[in-house]
């Protein structure tokens, strides 16, 4: 695998979406290639930052109570 082929598959690789064989090929290329590794490293950090930017958002308690009340009402209607 050359650098161009590796970079073409960068995001598929970081998302774990390649076949096992392709994952191993990209991994082997990254071990051997000092030029490609920083790009993968940067994009991996970028994806981690995207994940963290929203991951801690929680449903407000007031909304949680409203949903529970609505579902409870629907349950009672169906029981009736």
């Amino acid at each position, binding site marked *: 695998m050359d650098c161009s082929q590796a970079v073409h598959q960068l995001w598929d690789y970081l*998302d774990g979406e390649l076949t096992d064989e392709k994952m191993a090929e990209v991994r082997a290329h990254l071990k051997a290639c000092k030029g490609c590794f920083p*790009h993968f490293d*940067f994009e991996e*950090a*970028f*994806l981690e930052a995207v*994940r963290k930017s*929203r991951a801690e958002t929680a449903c*407000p308690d007031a909304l949680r109570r409203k949903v529970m009340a609505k*579902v409870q009402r629907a349950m009672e209607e169906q029981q009736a």
Partner: protein
Amino acid sequence: MGPAGREPTGRLLCYSHEREWFVADPSESKREQDLRFEREALPWMDDVYRFAKSMTRDEADADDLVQETYLRAYRAWHTFEPGSDCRRWLFTICRNVFLRTREREARQVDTGGDDAVLETMAAVREASPYAMSNPESIFSRLDVGPAIGKAIDALPEVFRSAVVLVDVEGQSYDEAAAVLGVPIGTVRSRLFRGRRILQHALLEFAKDAGLAAPA
């Protein structure tokens, strides 16, 4: 959300992405179904809220969307296949409810640039000066979370949904495709384009913060 119907024998038939048509458990009482809903669907409320908020970009609209999602989910609970992915099922309902209320916005988007490889290459090229100098510097020296959050909100809806489902909610391309009702290739190109736009916003933020691109 899958459809449901009855066989001539009276057995309830339901549809899921995992197993296509399946027979609902006839021995499960209404009470047991309700308990299962509380146990399996309600714990995903944080995730559904995040997804709803990422689509509406508005607290009040997200509130309405989450309530409507759960109400519809409850009413369609008999069509949910026990053991399949409840979170993904809820995301699908949430997205469908959203689209029905925002059809115009959803249709307006230019989804051009449909080449996932080109998007990947363009993103790598733009980040190259930062990546080659010190890949970690932007992320360790700046609080990039708010800038990325703002950039996600600014994305057109089709890119935003793909980014949120895969990058924030950890769905696979296949799972995101099922939620969005599009082929995997479309998820991939929307996701990669969304990422490239986000990364551009992040690099602009770094420049504004005085972290200039190395020569």
